[in-house]
């Protein structure tokens, strides 16, 4: 057992030292009736690296990796090229195997990284302050709603969700709201070329604590955030903007600039990878510093040490569960430190120049794909506006079409039937995402395969 350094001789000497005659003496508090003897049912004894690796490789081979197919899935998880040095850095043991920086004098590496990460996210979102990350975009979205309720001090209970918020995000908010008395307004999107901002604004009233809008939305369209922000603020409500594709912000104005009070999102697209849905990286920022003490999650702040040198610490922990217990702003304890590091390293490698060029390339390819798909008989492109993801209608249940294309080795996109199973009107629509990892040849392969299936 290669991970366990004690020898039997050590164990004997240590048992002597603690005054126990056998290891069972140390488990004396476990009721006799509940103790397990013998092997764990069905689990083989310990196995070497080769055997375990072989087993796991066999399982991994049963999956079709994105790199092995023309690939066009998005809907909250995006495939981008991650430079090799990102993985190299996150595998350094001093980052990989460190814990939450409770002892700042020997955790400056993690703390400075988090301070830089917070600044990168705040700037990307057009906000004053970002926290040191959360589990993922969907849970960050719920935490933002909970924060808005706290700011409304329970006097306003209505949460207005845009129809075009990612349905899984909306589902997380609805699930949690069942237990908190918040009342949720909003439904499934209608397939219109532009989002129906007027209808959303019409739902806002004096009882509204917050309005939640995805930007770009789940169909890839760009809602008019500035108008919605104005309407929300006029009613005394906060605007929560949700972004699932941070690369888009290299090409479009930030939600903070457009008036969102809280900006949350998924940071997975930068540095983290697809990983079948997790671990991902929840981003959370507030436009106005005055809301900082209401924020959930960890915050890293600048300070000085006893010699006057600049240093960093976790701060404002009086909001947190380990001090406030049942009065804490959130029960969140862990963050996504390692994913935040991956994001921050990738963002540092990109810089402003790389991010804007990457965004431009994503948009160029997505525009090309939309134009070429529109040429196929039976296909129409829905969106008036989009970044790297848009919706097409194909006149058939897109779930079947996606499965047929997968048989041909093309991963075509996310059917709206998968995302909105209860809504038959959306079932002929397919969400197509194009990033820099899909070349023009991949776009042509998608078009050819789709044409074949639809003919």
């Amino acid at each position, binding site marked *: 057992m290669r*991970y*366990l350094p004690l020898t039997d001789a050590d*164990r004997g000497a*240590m048992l002597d*030292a603690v*005054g126990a005659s056998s290891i069972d003496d140390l488990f004396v*508090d*476990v009721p006799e009736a509940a103790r397990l003897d013998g*092997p764990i049912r069905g*689990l083989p004894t310990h196995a070497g*690296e080769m055997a375990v*690796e072989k087993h*796991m490789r066999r399982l991994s081979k049963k999956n079709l*990796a994105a790199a092995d197919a023309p690939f066009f899935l998005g809907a909250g*998880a995006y*495939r981008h090229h991650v430079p090799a040095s990102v993985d190299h850095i996150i595998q350094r*043991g*001093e980052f*990989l195997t*460190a*814990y939450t920086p*409770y*002892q*700042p*004098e*020997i955790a400056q590496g993690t703390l400075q*990284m988090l*301070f*830089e990460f917070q600044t*990168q996210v705040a700037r990307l979102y057009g906000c004053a302050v970002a926290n040191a990350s959360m589990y*993922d975009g969907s849970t960050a979205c719920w935490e933002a709603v909970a924060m808005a309720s706290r700011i409304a001090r329970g006097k306003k209970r209505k949460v207005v969700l845009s129809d075009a918020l990612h349905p899984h995000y909306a589902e*997380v908010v609805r699930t949690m709201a069942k237990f*908190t008395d918040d009342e949720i307004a909003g439904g499934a999107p209608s397939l219109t070329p532009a989002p129906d901002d007027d209808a959303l604004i019409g739902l806002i009233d004096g009882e509204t604590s917050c309005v939640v809008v995805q930007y770009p939305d789940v169909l890839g369209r760009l809602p008019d955030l500035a108008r919605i922000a104005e309407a929300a603020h006029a009613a005394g409500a906060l605007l929560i903007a949700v972004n699932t594709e941070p690369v888009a912000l290299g*090409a*479009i*104005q930030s939600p903070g600039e457009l008036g969102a009070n809280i900006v949350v999102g998924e940071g997975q697209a930068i540095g983290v990878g697809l990983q079948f*849905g997790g*671990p991902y990286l929840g981003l959370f920022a507030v436009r106005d510093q005055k809301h900082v003490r209401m924020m959930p999650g960890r*915050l890293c702040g*600048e300070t000085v040490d006893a010699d006057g040198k600049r240093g960093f*610490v976790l701060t404002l922990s*009086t909001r947190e569960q380990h001090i*406030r217990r049942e009065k804490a702003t959130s029960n969140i*304890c*862990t963050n*996504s430190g390692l994913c935040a590091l991956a994001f921050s390293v990738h963002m*540092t*490698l990109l*810089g*402003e120049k790389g*991010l804007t*060029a990457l965004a431009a390339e994503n*948009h160029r390819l997505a*525009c090309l794909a939309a134009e070429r798909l529109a040429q196929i008989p039976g296909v129409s492109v829905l969106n008036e506006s989009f*970044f790297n993801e848009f919706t097409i209608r194909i006149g058939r249940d897109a779930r079947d079409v996606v*499965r047929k294309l*997968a048989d041909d080795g093309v*991963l075509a996109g*996310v059917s709206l039937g998968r995302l909105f199973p209860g809504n038959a009107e959306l079932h002929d629509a397919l969400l197509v995402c194009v990033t820099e*990892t899909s070349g023009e040849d991949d776009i042509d392969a998608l078009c050819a395969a789709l044409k074949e299936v639809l003919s």
Partner: protein
Amino acid sequence: MSNPNASGWKPGSPVSADSFSGPATTTGNRALMLEEPLIFETGSLDRTGVDLTFPGQMDLAGVDAAAPVRSEPSASKLGKFARKEAIGLPGLTEPETVRHYTRLSRQNYAIDLGLFPLGSCTMKHNPRLNEKVARMPGFADVHPLQPVETVRGALEVINELAFWLIELTGMHSVAMSPKAGAHGELCGILCIRAALEARGDARKVVLVPESAHGTNPATAAFAGYEIEDIPANSDGRVDFDALKSRLGPDVAGVMITNPSTLGLFERDLKAISDAVHEAGGFVYCDGANFNAIVGKVRPGDLGVDAMHINLHKTFSTPHGGGGPGSGPVVLSEALSPFAPLPYAARTADGTVHLVEEESADSFAQEHFGKTLQSFGRMTAFHGQMGMFTRALTYILSHGSDGLRQVAEDAVLNANYVLRQLEDVLHAPFAHSGPCMHEALFGDKGFAEGLSTLDLAKGLIDEGFHPMTMYFPLVVHGAMLVEPTETESKAALDQFIGALRSVAERAKAGDETLKTAPHYAPRARLDETLAARKPVLAWNGEVAPSGTPVPSEIGGQ
């Protein structure tokens, strides 16, 4: 105690801090300990570490060097939202980036550098095979919404891991999607609330022993419950009589940590469970410390209804500077129907199904013969897949014999630390029986003016990360030491020697502890200033050109 360190270190004779404050250097660096400016101070808006040559633009043959085909679309689709202003994000080239983060990494303590005795956090060796497996393209490079037929292997990983988690805990089912321990607590409490609501029972109170993790009361409050504390008895265990007398028709359940944060096994858990069930409530067990009993006892046999398992602790996935974690929740039969979507389930024919909103109703009808009662969805996708592959790799590596050895060695190591130090450090519950995974000490006997914090900072100078401080709250100046099973006897002896010497200094009133650490990258940091005047982002301009801005720190 003999000196266990061959390098000349002597317990009980610390070197004066003053003798190490040599002449200042012009850079602020000290040999291999390098100061590092912020990326905002050295990067610029026009520097980048990525080469924006995209696939299809490389002609390896070099024969026909014609420019690659690159089409331009007829129009932009960004509408009026196209970005006009700079974001203010600095870039660095690849060598600069690698150096920046490598230098930062050297200012971190990590389990790869030595014993990391944070009690209740469980810092054990991270096997690198786990990392290799998690990076296999079939796991790392698959999308959560790919057609189910193209992710059969990923579903098998979830199912295989789920199987072992159920087997090891003696429970009925497991919700895999919770993203971390505290998220798992929320999942368990919401299952309890959903089960109570399903029988029309609006109970309002959750009982939480005072030794609980701070996340427990925060979680129950977030789920809409009132919290009531349950005291500990003189042993440090939950006061069963106090708990029993509080049970009633308004109590939804109890949240109990076993083994507890005092390092003790709750002997009465089965009796507590029976009493809670009889009163119509449910038992939530915080499974953060499951590593101490894995393979030795199954919480399901003690009557637990829900328990989260921190995969990163018990089954060793890297903590990464604070996360990601992963907190699957095992459930009793009573709570299983309420588990959140999505989940993976194996059916009688042996195939693994991914059960989402789309398929949930028909699946529940067809395979369980009942309507779906899930309380909903807790997260966008299926959970922490990258942690599942690591945890399963770890379970298979250890096997049936190894997992039990893990618990036994973790408990043996903790008891060894407790007994080797109880003569020098106050151990308030040493009389309560063997400790489980962690040894608890208090600050009784320290000289006036010296605190647990000072001892911890002194331990940094000895080359160790300090233990958990001031937790659990029931012990004054608490120090919670969890060595874990991946430490050798020699490593433990060295740590025990260091802690003994610092403890002796704290008792003797050694004033130099008040300014420790003296040899760390930073001296004691001003946390009050950070909280009073929060600076949470860098607020300067980033250089527009490639000219590096002189470093504020390096220039001093």
